[in-house]
């Protein structure tokens, strides 16, 4: 978690976009903030939870987090929720009706689009939700704007009783820049007023709210037209004018300092007249927006002659090295050639991998040793099981999808797969997020799937956040802890088909998986060892390789632990005449935590507890560890 120092009002500090939003949420007098972790949005709620005088929670999923925020806003308090782009897909059911009821206390929904896919399964443009739900969208371009727009969003939200979307991207959430912060203002909630015509969305009531939503949108467009968040910046080079928003604005200014620019901060409803104003100033207009051509399409529909995705990519960031050649080409100028000097060195890739001693290592090593499996995977650290050396995860789509996809693979199996066993792999937090319903469906519909529920007591990939599975709340304080065995039993899995296994005991894990995949029923195998990055994990004595005993078989390398390194390679001709590759290894004892996984497949027993020759101090972690 980010360490937060109390920041005095009026000080100018280096903050990420996430930290800036958190500060503004606190200053705005927000009473309730809720979220489910997801890169690049996670730090917003982590930091909010360190501020006093407000309630913050990790919700079990994004839909619940939005509903919690809605309840608080109905009750008259200011509320906040945030999520990554795919989280909004989950929460959208609530959003699409929330737009009809509107809010009482201000409600801001910060959505973090992972433009460039640094840690996501897809790339989405969350500005669509503004159009879809007819709610306003703000787009900050740096941390200072993220801070200021969050405060402005609460004002607008209450003025129009409408939730406001703050659309961020990775390049806002995770960029640190200077922010001048202010003071907290108390917000006194009005209290909940029973008003069924507004808050009970049955057809008769909802139908009457729809025209109000459209009237609100007309007024919001007028506000957007006059908003100081939408500014035309004059420029001397009138060959091309730009309409842009978010981080793309910074890239445009960096690339074309003399061009006229309309910077959109309040981008939905779109201030079309303001766009016309810019168009009248320049020879041609280029819309620079990440990711989809939303503004471009709307302006074209309004009869404006603009360019956009004809000359710019639909995917990824629109950084200067993308913008400059595209505009040069448009203007008929020589396009700067990307010389070989500007291409990255062609060396080995360094994909993310599982940590030293990660409990998932044992699971994937075992899965890689069991034949005839189709493995339906899910979202989390364990998605890395798709990589080398395990290659033991065959699908990854959305949170909780491993359950339904496994059942579908079972029911939809063709002749070619009749001997294949279907396995689903899901983590504790993902299971609680959206996997439970899939398991219930699997049981109810008599599926034949073996579920591996990897309980490592943390939301691992986003930094080890707490969840209902580990008995701690967002502040690390004790909270009710779900019992996974009882939970899956309650969902209908037969008690004899539920197994709790220590993933470091490979023979037990192997036998349990091999036995259960043969049973034509729903089985759940729960692994119960903690993530190595959380405080529940206890390090053990490290291991080392006794060089004389290592035969170079390479079995330990197949575990996939990053502490194992090859010292030399060789070849051996077997009695059968077959030539095999040998890889002799060592263990980096300074990072080994003694999990013992690599010891188990080592036939010559060459891996033993580390016995230092001289009494040197052993240190863990840190630089170059």
């Amino acid at each position, binding site marked *: 978690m980010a360490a937060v120092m109390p920041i005095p009002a009026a000080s100018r500090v280096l903050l990420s976009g996430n930290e800036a939003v958190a500060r503004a949420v606190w200053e705005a007098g927000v009473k309730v903030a809720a979220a489910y972790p997801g890169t690049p949005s996670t730090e917003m709620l982590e930091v909010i939870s360190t501020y006093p005088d407000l309630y913050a929670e990790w919700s079990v999923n994004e839909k619940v987090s939005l509903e919690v925020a809605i309840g608080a806003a109905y009750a008259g308090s200011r509320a906040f929720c945030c999520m990554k782009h795919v989280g909004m897909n989950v929460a959208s059911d609530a959003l699409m009706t929330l737009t009809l009821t509107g809010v009482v206390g201000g409600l801001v929904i910060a959505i973090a689009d992972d433009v460039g896919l640094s840690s996501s399964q897809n790339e989405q443009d969350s500005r669509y939700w503004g159009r879809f739900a007819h709610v306003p969208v703000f787009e900050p371009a740096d941390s200072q704007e993220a801070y200021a727009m969050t405060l402005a969003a609460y004002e607008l939200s209450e003025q129009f009783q409408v939730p406001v979307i703050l659309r961020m991207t990775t390049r806002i959430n995770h960029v640190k820049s200077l922010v001048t912060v202010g003071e907290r203002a108390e917000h006194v909630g009005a209290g909940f007023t029973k008003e069924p015509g507004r808050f009970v969305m049955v057809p008769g009531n909802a139908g009457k709210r729809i025209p109000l939503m459209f009237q609100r949108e007309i007024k919001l467009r007028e506000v957007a037209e006059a908003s100081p968040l939408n500014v035309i910046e004059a420029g001397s080079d009138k060959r091309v004018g730009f309409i842009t928003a978010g*981080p793309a604005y910074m*890239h445009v*200014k960096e690339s074309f300092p003399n061009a006229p620019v309309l910077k959109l901060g309040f981008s939905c409803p779109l201030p079309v007249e303001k766009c016309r104003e810019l168009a009248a100033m320049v020879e041609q207009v280029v819309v620079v927006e990440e990711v989809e051509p939303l503004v471009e399409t709307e302006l074209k529909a309004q009869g404006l002659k603009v360019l956009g995705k004809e000359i710019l990519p639909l995917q990824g960031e629109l950084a200067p090295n993308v913008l400059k050649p595209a505009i040069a080409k448009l203007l008929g100028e020589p396009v700067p050639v990307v010389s070989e000097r500007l291409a990255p060195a062609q060396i080995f890739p360094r994909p993310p991998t599982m940590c030293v001693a990660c409990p998932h290592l044992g699971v994937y090593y075992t899965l890689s040793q069991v034949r005839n499996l189709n493995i339906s995977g899910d979202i989390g650290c364990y998605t890395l099981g798709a990589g080398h050396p395990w290659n033991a995860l065959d699908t990854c789509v959305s949170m909780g999808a491993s359950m339904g996809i496994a059942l579908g693979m079972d029911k939809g199996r063709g002749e070619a797969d009749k001997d294949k066993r279907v396995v689903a792999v899901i983590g504790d937090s993902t299971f609680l997020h959206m996997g439970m319903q899939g398991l219930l469906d699997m049981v109810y519909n008599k599926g034949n799937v073996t579920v591996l529920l990897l309980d490592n007591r943390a939301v691992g990939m986003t930094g080890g956040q707490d969840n209902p599975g580990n008995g701690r709340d967002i502040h690390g304080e004790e909270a009710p802890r779900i019992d996974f065995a009882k939970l899956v039993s309650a969902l209908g899995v037969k008690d004899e088909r539920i197994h709790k296994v220590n993933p470091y005991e490979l023979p037990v894990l192997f036998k349990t998986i091999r036995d259960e995949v043969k049973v034509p029923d729903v089985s759940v195998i729960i692994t119960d060892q903690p993530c190595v990055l959380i405080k529940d994990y206890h390090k053990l004595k490290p291991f080392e390789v006794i060089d004389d005993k290592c035969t170079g078989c390479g079995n330990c390398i197949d575990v996939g632990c990053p502490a194992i390194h090859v010292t030399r390679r060789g070849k051996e001709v077997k009695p059968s005449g077959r030539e095999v590759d040998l890889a002799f290894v060592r263990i980096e004892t300074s990072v080994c935590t003694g999990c013992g996984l690599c010891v188990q497949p080592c036939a010559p027993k060459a891996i033993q507890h580390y016995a230092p020759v001289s009494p040197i101090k052993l240190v863990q972690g840190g630089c*170059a*560890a």
Partner: protein
Amino acid sequence: MSENTNILVVGIGGQGVMTATEILAEAAIAMGHDAKKTEVAGMAQRGGVVSSHLRFGQRVLSPQITPGTADVLLGFESAEAMRWQHMLKPGGITLMNTARLVPPVVELGLFDYPEDPLAEIRKTGNKVVAFDATSIALELGDIRLGNTVMLGAIADHLPFSAETLLDCVLKRFQRKGEKLVALNRRAFEAGRAAVGEAEAAVA
């Protein structure tokens, strides 16, 4: 806009690349600069590639360093220093730790680790200074000092004084006691000296 200083810090997840860049940013801000710091990190906590961009000057717009415009490349690992050479401007300098951190995909025999990343960098014609930050840290008694050694290494290649940077480094350890402050001061000076000596040897 071209007046901005661009510093690229590269390494792998867990090495402290992002913290080092943040301290550099704090030093730039202490000197009255505007600054932006950004990462291409992805799931870097899991041993992946990390490249952290720092830009500072009168006013910084885009947070990203455009390929071919970095003034200094601070490499926490040999192959990573090599991977990012294309980011340097002509005449830019690389300050690199000679440590080699070999990833599982190489141990599995799927890829090769470059035999001599330093020689490969020299071939590009870019200036490079190499030093063993990991050994320096271990000699001082704790591998975790490597981060401060790296910051000492860049101290004389910034448009502000080494003392400004040192102040920002030590501020991080103030609450942790005098002993750690003193140790980090030594690590900083050792990194600074290592680069100074390596440069003197070349000159």
